[in-house]
């Protein structure tokens, strides 16, 4: 399942540092779904995560009101995190491009297993940063020593003190 896509640690750290608010498309209200895990984790790390899911619009997930579309979210958000399949990521990306300037969107992030090269090309042409086939929770954990706590290979070799995030 390893991906041919590569992103440098510095590049991912900069995205995670510069992002404060994330619109999570496909967020689930069910506690044992992967998107719920990621949303809860990112909230604990200090991010505001706004769920986007037409099926539960108007209801709250983890204390945040869910919206039916990116356009309906009232405030600004720097990242769109896409928890949909690769095909569905296309229209979501186009929706994000359409409201990018108004909403302050800088990053399109497609989850693990989600790869849509055509959509990525359109987003890059619109000046957006694109990450595909990664999970922001896993990357945050990897770059802040937490994956190492679980016995995972973070790939980080350094004689500097470990970076840790809010735990």
């Amino acid at each position: 399942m390893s991906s041919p896509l590569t992103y440098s640690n510095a590049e991912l750290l900069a995205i995670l540092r510069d992002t404060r608010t994330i619109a999570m498309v496909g967020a689930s209200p069910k506690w044992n779904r992967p998107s719920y895990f990621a949303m809860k984790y990112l909230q604990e790390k200090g991010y505001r995560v706004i769920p986007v899911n037409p099926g539960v619009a108007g209801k709250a997930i983890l204390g945040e009101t869910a919206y039916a579309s990116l356009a309906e979210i009232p405030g600004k958000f720097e990242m769109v995190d896409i928890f949909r399949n690769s095909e569905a990521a296309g229209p979501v990306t186009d929706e994000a491009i359409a409201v990018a300037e108004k909403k302050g969107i800088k990053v399109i992030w497609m989850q693990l297993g989600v790869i849509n090269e055509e959509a990525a090309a359109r987003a890059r042409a619109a000046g957006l940063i694109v990450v595909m086939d990664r999970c922001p929770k896993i990357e945050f954990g990897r770059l802040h020593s937490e994956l190492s706590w679980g016995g995972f290979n973070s790939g980080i070799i350094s004689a500097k003190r470990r970076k840790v995030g809010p735990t």
Partner: protein
Amino acid sequence: MNDDAKKKADRAFGFETRMIHAGTQPEPITGARQTPIFQNTSYVFHDADHAASLFNLQTFGFIYSRLTNPTVAALEERLANLEGGRGSTCCASGHAAQILAFFALMEPGDRFIASTRLYGGSITQFGKTFKKFDWQADFVDVDDPDAVRRALTPKTKAIFVESLANPGGVVSDLEALAAVAHEAEIPLIVDNTMATPYLCRPFEWGADIVVHSTTKFLSGNGTSVGGAVIDSGRFDWAASGKFPGLAAPEPAYHGLNFHETFGDMAFTMQAHAVGLRDLGSTMAPMNAFQTLLGTETLSLRMERHCANAKRVAEYLEGHPRVDWVSCAALASSPYRALAQKYLPLGAGSVFTIGLKGGYAAGVKMVESCELLSHLANVGDVRSLILHPASTTHRQLSAEQQTAAGAGPEVVRLSIGLETVDDIIADLDQALAAAADAF
């Protein structure tokens, strides 16, 4: 940060750098350069919600050292890194590692294929004790991939081999066996204890899971019993529907599906959160620390182990009381071509010899050694000698002993790092002392 710096690819560090640094970045609070020994059972929660997140596996962190511990985690990351895997789970011993690996894959009534030439302790564990879990091992001569293919059944969940067998000087054709496993949509599990990741990295040849007894060369110091299961992160546990423990709702976690939730981290998450939690075969932090110290010098030790072993094997091959030497480093070995392919830097330092005098000569020779230690371990900095038929392999039938390369005439050697001429001199006097038995 400018865009060029951000885009700069991360350096691909060499093996020697990683064996010293991987997993052991300095501790964040004190900056302690050597890895602290977290001799500690439990970890305080921030609040009830944090505790809930940890128990639900929604966040990373420590709960209880039966599951994870910072010192053990440092060793786990180092081994995962050196093998080129995604994650690793350390545990109490190499035998515990084997149970942990199969526990993730097997249901009662399932089967797996194992090499007939495995270490005798593995054959006993698989053939006898695993039956109590209703797991059936089918032992096959894995030198013949077609025989392996014929032994597959719909219930077969894995193929298990050693990269370099203990003690026979046998090398497995990992690439061919991985192909057979993947045709059957099952993983190839490789015990890489005798080779270590310095000499062989099974994931590069298609293996899916690697297990180790870390007691041997990885620690090298003969202080600490330990094991590890390392996952490549590449096997698709959901595709075949054969692995409900990894890719179906887990009743012990409120219906959590590890494959769906953790992707390529599923195996290692399961091995800690279900495997270690419920089997309880945890590695002690002190043992992890001692093993980490060993791995810091792994490449240097393995180079010398291999060089010394080759010299000793060549000497013994010419000795009149020695019938044969089974060592993949020798030009005469039937496994020489496989060794050159899979173990280009050396064929390890554990090998067997057959004495012309049989069982009695074997016993007398090991008892006569003064420098080589007569004990049941391998991979120590000290040279070790053992007569398997009277010790490690005595639980096996005569037929199994012969199949495992541990017949009555066989003596096993694990060549250490002493001055090689001293090792040869001791073996020479021991063979002379055993003269009456020839």
